[in-house]
């Protein structure tokens, strides 16, 4: 066994791991600048409070303190708030409510952890000590935490100008057609569902180092961002009113994002502004408690969902009514997550002809909620798959059978759903067949009986999910309210010696782009893998970028690199034709070699590159020297990864403890560049999806608005011993509309798995009368559900 191929399709070992595993990674907190100072943010201890006054005098006088700033200082400098990147329109036709999102609170604090002031001092310790001396005079006000309750009249308002705390109500689909389907339905399956709030918990907390150079009137911001170019654009154009070309944003090694590092936050904007005010670089690194309180949270939906079925168990209509918690302020993509990224996925893998969704987005006194691994699609999958699994039980069909009766058949692609999306390709039956094989579904009843003998209840749950990735065709996104484009930029630079540097607007914070992208380049240009470097995360080095989220980097960012390579190959072919004294049409290109057709005359890519930079024998009258091409790629459609997850659990009825004994995931990711990295992404996604289903849940006290799960003592992160050894495979149908035929794999595990887990538990506990279960299915919840079901049976 030698090393795997470094071309497309090879499980090349990750080149970036060498520095990560040897402690050579360079994270934002590793950046230190001459004269650096430290910031500490004063945060609201109250969920809702009027700020009568802020006395900063004691803090200013404390040892080492250079400055204390409040919202008033920012307002005096004309500093704006954080913008929302996506405008949703209300059913009334009016735009959504967009209350200001100041960097530092102005007049009111709206969640525990809201930024009230910042202290800057010579040392971290001094900044923190002085922060405790900032005297904020608060009037505590009543808070509202639940989105359903926040809509009721008489509840406290998060923003005085937003009645009923309602940001918008938004609809998708044909309500008349859906109602008509329910009228003639043979059976209706209904569920009330909660999609639990999650806290992202990237291993590396958010951090920033900002500096200002008066000589060049230039700002540099190092920050833990998944998309530094977007951060620069938003900070310069919308928040700080700075010339974009005078701001450099660098996002070096980043230790996990999961969505939470997409958005520009108050801290990095405040630091950038303050670095000029005090004339010194400023560093801030979040403490873990700050991460819990102030990183954008995920999910938090409450949904009433109904499925109408005909006598054969075919889905004829679906109605969904969702209340989505936005938290106290609109984070960057908050408005798009429960709408564009959610309701459009409600067709799932099925031919349901009539679907109507209504989404009400609500402000509450909690941390802002935004995209978190999956972003809207896990919420949609949870609704669809819980309904489908329940409908199967209601109709007396097997989980596989009800799905097969309703799958979009392979010959129906491209398939237009009733909720806006147009699926290009897929084979849902293939992934389900393979998953049932790999999960040994045939042997399940035997395993159930064996478990019963040990006093355990064993169950099996299915989820056949779809997602829309590769965000996104800019014109479609624009029509749906996006305030930015969603293309990606790539640049491929051949150096005179045949080595290559690739510049991408995508950002790697765990995904392994430095390996995957280098494999693509090595494959297409026939250049050794080790001769390719991938550069990302620096607005001064890559032309532009929309960053990494939504499983978009390979499908969109990778495609931009391919487009740039196409230009390289085209130009090289013309250079080779000149050097080989042949007609351009006679030059054949294969794996880095240009050959005159039918001869043994050839040139390597490296030889062409050398000639391009030393153009002595070169068509200078037709071609510029050099070999450096860039491209922007704007996708023509979303990509549609899909797959089948099958979960098998054992429940201890005495304690309510659930053990996942088997988990099978068979996914369709389109073409796969590096199977090992894909498998790793699936494992990580499954851990987070299983985490949501069994372990994780952010809990705020309903009265005080305090975050009860504010540390790892109470917020349960999935650990290795909570998870089984996964059974993972792929059944791939190449994407039809991007040059690599790829779909994306980063979120699939988190999207597909939660309903499979919950349904496995419900299946296990059917003999005890349990019919429903809320996430996370903690031992307490499972035990309680058993008690309640037993109580019902006795009564």
């Amino acid at each position, binding site marked *: 066994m030698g090393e795997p191929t470094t071309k497309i399709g090879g499980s090349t070992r990750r080149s970036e791991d060498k520095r990560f595993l040897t402690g050579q990674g360079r994270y934002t907190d590793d950046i230190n600048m001459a004269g650096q100072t430290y910031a500490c943010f004063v945060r609201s201890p109250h969920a809702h409070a009027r700020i009568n006054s802020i006395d900063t005098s004691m803090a200013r006088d404390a040892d080492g303190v250079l400055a204390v700033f409040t919202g008033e200082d920012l307002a005096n400098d004309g500093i704006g708030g954080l913008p929302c990147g996506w405008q949703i329109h209300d059913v009334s036709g009016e735009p959504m409510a967009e209350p200001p999102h100041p960097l530092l609170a102005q007049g009111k604090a709206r969640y525990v952890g809201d930024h009230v002031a910042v202290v800057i001092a010579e040392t971290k310790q001094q900044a923190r000590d002085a922060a405790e001396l900032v005297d904020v005079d608060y009037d505590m006000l009543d808070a509202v935490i639940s989105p359903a309750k926040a809509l009721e009249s008489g509840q406290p308002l998060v923003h005085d100008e937003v009645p009923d705390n309602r940001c918008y109500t938004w609809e998708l689909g044909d309500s008349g057609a859906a109602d008509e389907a329910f009228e003639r339905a043979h059976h209706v399956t209904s569920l009330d569902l909660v999609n639990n709030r999650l806290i992202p918990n990237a291993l590396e907390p958010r951090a920033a180092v900002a500096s200002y150079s008066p000589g060049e009137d230039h700002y540099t911001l190092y920050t833990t961002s998944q998309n530094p170019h977007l951060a620069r654009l938003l900070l310069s154009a919308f928040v700080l009113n700075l010339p974009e070309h005078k701001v450099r944003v660098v996002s070096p090694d980043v230790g996990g994002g999961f969505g939470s590092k997409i958005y520009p936050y108050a801290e990095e904007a405040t630091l950038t502004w303050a670095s000029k005010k005090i004339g010194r670089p400023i560093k801030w690194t979040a403490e873990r408690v700050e991460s819990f309180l102030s990183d954008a949270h995920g999910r938090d939906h409450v949904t009433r969902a109904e499925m109408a079925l005909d006598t054969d168990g075919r889905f004829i209509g679906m109605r969904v009514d969702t209340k989505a918690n936005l938290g106290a302020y609109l984070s960057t993509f908050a408005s798009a997550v429960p709408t564009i990224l959610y309701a459009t996925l409600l067709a799932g893998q099925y031919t349901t002809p009539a679907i109507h969704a209504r989404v009400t987005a609500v402000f509450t006194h909690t941390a802002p909620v935004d995209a978190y691994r999956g972003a809207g699609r896990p919420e949609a999958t949870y609704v669809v798959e819980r309904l489908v699994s329940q409908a199967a039980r209601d109709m007396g069909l097997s989980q596989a059978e009800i799905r097969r009766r309703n799958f979009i058949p392979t010959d129906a692609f491209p398939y237009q759903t009733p909720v806006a999306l147009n699926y290009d390709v897929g084979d849902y039956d293939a992934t389900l067949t393979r998953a049932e094989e790999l999960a040994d579904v045939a042997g399940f009843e035997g395993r159930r009986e064996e478990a019963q003998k040990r006093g355990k209840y064993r169950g099996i749950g299915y989820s056949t999910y779809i997602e829309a990735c590769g965000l996104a065709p800019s014109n479609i996104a624009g029509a749906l309210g996006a305030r930015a484009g969603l293309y990606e930029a790539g640049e491929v630079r051949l150096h005179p010696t045949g080595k290559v540097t690739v510049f991408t607007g995508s950002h790697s914070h765990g995904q392994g782009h430095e390996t995957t992208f280098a494999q693509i380049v090595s494959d297409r240009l026939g250049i050794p893998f080790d001769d390719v470097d991938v550069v990302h995360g620096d607005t001064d080095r890559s032309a532009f970028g929309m960053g990494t989220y939504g499983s978009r980097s390979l499908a969109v960012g990778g495609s931009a690199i391919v487009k740039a390579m196409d230009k390289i190959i085209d130009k090289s072919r013309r250079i080779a034709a000149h050097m080989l004294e042949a007609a351009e049409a006679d030059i054949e290109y294969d794996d880095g070699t240009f050959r005159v057709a039918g001869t043994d005359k050839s040139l390597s890519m490296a030889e062409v590159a050398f000639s391009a930079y030393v153009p002595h024998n070169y068509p200078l009258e037709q071609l510029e020297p050099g070999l450096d091409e860039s491209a922007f790629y704007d996708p023509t459609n979303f990509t549609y990864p899909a797959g089948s997850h099958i979960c098998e659990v054992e429940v201890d009825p005495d304690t309510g403890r659930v053990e996942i004994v088997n988990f099978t995931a068979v996914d369709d990711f389109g073409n796969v560049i590096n199977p090992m990295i894909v498998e790793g992404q699936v494992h990580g996604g499954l851990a987070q999806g299983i985490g949501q289903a069994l372990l994780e849940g952010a809990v705020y006290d309903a009265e005080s608005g305090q975050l009860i799960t504010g540390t790892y003592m*109470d*917020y349960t992160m999935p650990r290795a011993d909570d998870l089984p050894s996964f059974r993972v495979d792929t059944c791939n149908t190449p994407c039809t509309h991007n040059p690599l035929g790829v779909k994306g794999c980063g979120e699939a595990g988190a999207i597909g798995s939660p309903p499979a887990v919950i349904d496995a538990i419900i299946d296990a506990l059917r003999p005890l009368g349990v019919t429903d279960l809320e996430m996370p299915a903690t031992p307490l919840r499972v035990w309680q559900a058993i008690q309640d079901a037993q109580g019902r049976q006795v009564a």
Partner: protein
Amino acid sequence: MYAFGYHRPTTIDEAVTLLGQSEDASAIAGGQTLLQSLKQRLAQPGELVDLGAIKELSGIAVDGRTVVIGALTKHNEVALSSEVRKAVPALADLAGAIGDHQVRNVGTIGGSVANSDPAADYPAAVLGLGATVETNQRRIAADDFFIDLFETALEPGELIKAIHFPVPKRAAYVKFAQPASRYALAGVMVAETGDGVRLAVTGAGACAFRVPAMEQALAGDFSADAIKGVQVDADELNDDIHGTPAYRAHLVNVLARRAVEAAR
């Protein structure tokens, strides 16, 4: 963390003197609770007196009837001690299931017992096995030691030197971990000792407590069935997002039966 003075005495007397010199001095053993509090600025000792260099506080001594464990002995030293495992396997098992390897390599038995965290494992062993807590001033019976939430019989200036565990005929500790912290949501130590059956619970109440009704039932019939119908009173038990009092009361019964079955 706030700034603090740091001392590392080598004798108990020196430690006691240092602790007596300042109103806000705090002893630190393994620091597995205190360091978290310091980092979050929830505790603000002016002086920290590190007991780690006091050699006489560490070590395990086993004779036929008693296992004596020095206060500064680390959880993994207990868990991996072949002598402890031979004499009181339940104690080695308990120590081996505290936290994770990092915690077990730093955390100490004395620190755990002195802290009387309602969810710590060791208090169940001390109480369930009928141990004696030896301090620099006296010997305290387990039944007199745990007073309340984070409250013990220890007086100011009193330091635990060692815990004396009588070797039981048989015993077992079974815990059900709180999912996030992996502390005991409930944990039960049951032991058949020379002085009868003892059954102690941790995790469920303000501090470790015995369940006399179960002990009496087991005295007549040391079997899981004997306590099947014996429930602890839920009214006194802890209530949080991980467990209601009723759930904890139920778990105590389940774990007690499992412990009886596992006792060896």
